[in-house]
């Protein structure tokens, strides 16, 4: 297939996943912010949201304060934010338009629908009373897109590149969410394991739709190291880093098989997967979760880069 087509499919899936993640981030902040002030007094959930979306610097160039209004405006549609939900949807549709022939009509219609909806969205309505509706519609679009791709695409390289985009973005998002919670959210003088801490961890699980499944796996109350274990090392959890890398390896292996040769991207991804397989959560905490996650984000980017050099340019 054409390198440009592969590249477009890859980024199309990434941007759809990114929009989904942003919607989840806003959702969590909004939920945390509605907690009684006794729990939430000193922390700023909205600032946490900006950090989770990894656009803190860009945000504070535009605003002084991370208020609800400002953050929603910035993450949903601000022009200075190249990774706002609107920008993600625009970019995704631009990519989709450029490779319409490489997609099924179901995929195209999903993207086109959400894009058309986005044209009529008024920021004021979202801030006032339609936030939940809006966020659900974005999450739904991403679900529909994922489902459409999964159900209707031929299992050829088109599909593998689309999946790779989604998984690499998802790995990045999961890692950042964890990192932000671990390092940014909890005010210094709040006790780890205290009331606020507990709500923040449960919200994190909720944001990846994993709160219920957490209880199914651990049958315990939510504890930081268990959440980390769940989202990093448990293969049952589809958003955990190890589960995502399992999938990334599968897609890369299919490509290698199809093309009859493999390269750096396959080797890099396999190394990350092996690392995760050998890791124990106690060790990760011992050596510093933040350090582990930072290095994971770098390695994950490296896979994206080697993939681009190998196939997409």
């Amino acid at each position, binding site marked *: 297939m*054409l390198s440009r087509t592969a590249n477009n499919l890859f980024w199309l899936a990434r941007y759809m996943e990114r929009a989904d993640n942003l919607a989840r981030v806003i959702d969590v902040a909004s939920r945390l912010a509605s907690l009684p002030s006794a729990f939430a007094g000193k922390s700023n959930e909205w600032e946490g949201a900006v950090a989770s979306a990894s656009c803190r610097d860009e945000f504070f160039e535009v605003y002084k304060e991370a208020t609800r209004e400002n953050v929603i405006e910035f993450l949903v549609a601000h022009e200075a934010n190249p990774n706002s939900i609107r920008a993600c949807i625009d970019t995704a549709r631009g990519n989709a338009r450029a490779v*319409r*022939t490489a997609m099924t009509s179901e995929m195209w*219609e999903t993207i*086109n629908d959400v894009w058309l909806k986005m044209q009529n969205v008024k920021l004021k309505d979202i801030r006032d009373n339609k936030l939940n509706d809006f966020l659900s519609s974005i999450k739904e679009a991403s679900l529909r897109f994922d489902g459409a791709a999964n159900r209707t695409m031929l299992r050829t*390289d088109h599909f593998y590149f689309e999946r790779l985009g989604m998984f690499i973005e998802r790995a990045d998002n999961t890692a950042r969410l964890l990192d932000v919670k671990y390092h940014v959210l909890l005010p210094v003088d709040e006790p780890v394991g205290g009331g606020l801490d507990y709500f923040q961890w449960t919200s994190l699980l909720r944001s990846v739709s994993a709160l219920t499944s957490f209880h199914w796996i651990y049958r315990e109350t939510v504890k930081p190291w268990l959440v980390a274990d769940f989202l990093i090392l448990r293969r049952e959890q589809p958003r955990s880093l190890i589960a995502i890398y399992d999938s990334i390896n599968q897609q890369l292996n299919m490509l290698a098989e199809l093309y009859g040769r493999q390269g750096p991207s396959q080797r890099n991804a396999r190394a990350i997967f092996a690392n995760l397989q050998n890791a124990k959560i106690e060790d990760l905490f011992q050596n510093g979760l933040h350090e582990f996650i930072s290095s994971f984000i770098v390695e994950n980017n490296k896979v994206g880069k080697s993939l681009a050099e190998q*196939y997409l340019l």
Partner: protein
Amino acid sequence: MARISDPIGIMGWNVQIFDEMLGADGHTRDVYRNLNDWFSQASPEVLSSRFSEAEAFFRRIGITFAVYGDAQGTERLIPFDIVPRMLAAKEWAFLKKGLEQRVKAINAFIGDIYGNREILRAGIVPEDLILQNPTFRPEMMQFRPAGNVYAHISGIDIVRIDAETFYVLEDNARTPSGVSYMLENREAMMRLFPELFALHRIAPVDDYPDKLLACMRSVAPKTASREPNVVLLTPGQYNSAYYEHSFLADKMGIELLEGRDLFVRNNCVYMRTTEGPQRVDVIYRRMDDEYLDPLTFRPDSTLGVPGLMSAYKAGNVTLANAIGTGISDDKAIYSYMPEIIRFYSGEEPQLKNVPTWCCREPDALRYVLDHLPELVVKEVNGSGGYGMLVGPHSSKAQIEEFRAKLKAHPEGFIAQPTLSLSTVPCYVDSGLVPRHVDLRPFVLCGADGVEIVPGGLTRVAMKAGSLVVNSSQGGGTKDTWVME
């Protein structure tokens, strides 16, 4: 004297407008009978709901086009009318024969002017009109494309003025567009009006992409493998016809490429794929000559492929349409088309030209300047309905502006009488109303001969009384049904 004749006296003004459903006498013509019955019985609710369904269908599949210079966003829907335009089997047989004759002549003509120039030596077409024409490409001289085919795809615009008379309005042998609307309109009609399809025997059009692909394969270079790699080259998603490009590539199952996906090495063309370079044999290009190769044509073109022309001339790749076919779209050349057809086919042209004053001829110019308010004046190299004057619908100031242009550059213009184009019924809020239409059939010419899918694209001037059907000027489309 200007080569102009008025065989059936259409130049007058008070000609009755011919309605294709009601005919001249107000009695429903046979071919429309079932359709008319159905529409008269359908309740307004049914019609309006079908109309909304059609709108939703086109918006969902994203069939849009861009309008150049339109600040209001770059995408718009082309208005679609739910009443089909009908052609009887006999009418189509007549048109088909004429189209085949005309397209064969166009191919012979282009081959001749880039070859031995017999038509110039015979004095039938003035030499300077060819050699000094901006669309003449000297690079093509003494070069023979594969299969000797130049205009692989032509769109011949046809208008009708009464039950028997069809005119060719213009020839499009450069990169004619609109065929995706023909196909999508049919798709929409089959979803919306299955009962009408049960009432009629309508010739199918959906094999067009297969025929197009077969046509492209038939002209693959000799060096190509047995399974030639055919691709479609687009200027990209900001082009007004991008939807069509991706639609056709999809239906043909071929790659949709931009210039940057291709490169030339050792006079061969390759595309960049995830598995490395892959050879390209036939390029269905939807890009004008000037942009194709910055080394030969416009050096500032970033859309093209450097070195493409040398690969082409080495015979290692086929371009469809060939370079330099724009010459036959020239409206001054158009006025010679009847003679061109006679010269190459030895037959009388089956399809008539609209009587045309070629303003480069002094007598004709004088006549045109004297009769501007009643004529249509067009630029010889114009297209898309831009840069033309429709005399009866223009203000004095507009007419004077054109008078000045005409005097300054008479060779840049032709003039035609304002034709009373036929009308067909269209659905609007108030029911069925007559609107003017034209027809663009798509003619395929491959190494094995000519293929035409029955019908074509019917374009409608959606405003009451308007004669301009171009989509860029607010025109719409409707499905065209050829009866079997």
